[in-house]
């Protein structure tokens, strides 16, 4: 430290200048917003539950199951996500068709994810060969009852149309079909 810095007073004034500048900058960015003359304020934080920000597409919220246009889950109940899951929060009981030819051969009868155990690592999404499980941008899953955090297949199913961006992202990210 130089003698000038050691004398402390100039550095205090420098610091106070910085904080005062931020204060007045934000104050005058704040008032027009509340008077209604400015559309957006110059403050970075938001009133959280009322205002929400768009999370980046790489954000890993709760994992959801993709639901095809005809309402059937894209999942084939292969169990790879169950194996990939480091926290053992996924439970799958497969169902398959009984001989009659139709479009789907296998599907999960039971597909449970316990969000109280899930660590949101995204390994299930990476392991999935069928583009069936994806990390959504929903992170508001806190509850007062642990038992309610066990989501069943019906709660997990999300239309593919809603997941399109994430699907694009995972294709680029994991290059799934470029073996």
């Amino acid at each position, binding site marked *: 430290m130089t003698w000038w810095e050691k004398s402390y*007073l100039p550095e*205090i004034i420098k*610091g*106070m200048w*910085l*904080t*005062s500048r*931020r*204060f007045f900058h*934000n*104050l005058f960015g*704040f008032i027009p917003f*509340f008077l209604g003359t400015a559309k957006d304020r110059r*403050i*970075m*934080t*938001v*009133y959280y539950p009322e205002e929400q920000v768009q999370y980046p597409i790489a954000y890993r919220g709760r994992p959801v199951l993709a639901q095809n246009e005809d309402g059937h889950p894209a999942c084939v109940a292969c169990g790879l996500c169950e194996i990939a899951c480091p926290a053992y929060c996924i439970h799958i009981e497969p169902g398959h068709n009984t001989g009659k030819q139709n479009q789907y051969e296998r599907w999960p009868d039971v597909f449970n994810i316990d969000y109280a155990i899930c660590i949101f690592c995204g390994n299930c999404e990476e392991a999935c060969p069928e583009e069936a499980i994806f990390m959504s941008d929903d992170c508001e899953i806190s509850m007062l009852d642990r038992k309610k955090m066990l989501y069943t297949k019906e709660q997990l199913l999300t239309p593919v149309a809603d997941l399109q961006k994430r699907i694009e992202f995972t294709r680029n990210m994991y290059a799934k079909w470029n073996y």
Partner: protein
Amino acid sequence: MWVDLIITLVKIFFILAITVGFFAPVLTWVERKQSALMQDRIGANRADIMGFTALGLFHIIADALKMFTKEDFIPDGANKVLHTLSPIIALVPALVTFAVVPFGGQYTLFDKEVNLVISDLDVGLLFVFAIASLATYGYVIAGWSSNNNWSLLGSMRTASQMISYEVTMGLTIIGVLMVYGTMKLTEIGAAQEDFLRWGFFLQPLGFFMFLTASIAENKRIPFDAPEAESELVAGYFTEYSGLKFGMFFMAEFVEMVTIGAIMTILFFGAWHIPFLTTATLLSWFDFLGTTGSNLVVMLIHVGVFFAKVVFFIYLQMIIRWTLPRFRYDQIMKLGWKILLPLSLANIFVTGLVILALN
């Protein structure tokens, strides 16, 4: 006689209303909002009435409600009497100090001289320091009677810090006393009518030292070692809850106003507007008659005084949210090795200059 009594009562009511009723609650809001804006946040905004938040002003009401309804907890093994008494001892000096603080000059209203100070003591400044140092007892007793190690440590730190910085404070104002030659706060205020005779220009070093020492007296950051959250939980008021905690809290904010008021009177020209004497102001409003012009000038002066007080409060808040906490040994070093010699040197130089000018 009766008129005097009524005037005094009005003044007491005004001071209490503006410190306890206005400044103390509003400052809790200001501190939240100011710190938030400074750190690019929004700040308190959750308390609402019918969905209307009024920029978070309802947090004041919410705070008051919370403090009134909270359980008044006294820990096992605590001295109940002293535990209850100490917040009162801490809060009262902060309020009593205002008895000698003038918030305006002398005005002629309805052929009566009105002096805008509750009690114009000849030893006003001494009275302020005598009463302010009493608050130390409140903090020491609070820590001791809580039967808690952290509280005791906090109160020990409070005692040593307040005593160390009171020495500096007392020696700093001697420079001011030498310049103005009086201890009456009203006379010190009146002597600063000329802009160039403001205490800030006559005692620049004294101003900075007094500011430092008074923030240390108030135990606010950067001198908050007595209540250091990261070390001592909350220092001397760890074991306090409800309204007793509220009283400590209020004492801090009232003390901020006191410091602002004393600084304004000693160093920032009290109720005077720069380059504008009272006589000039009075002549501007001459068309209103004696009483009318005096009344207008009185309102202007009181407004100017409290504007300056608000400026000093803002300064204290900016300092609080800018600087990190001093270590305990640094506080002692600053108090005894830097500020004390500097204040003695300040007295010496002031004396030399006064001698040379005479």
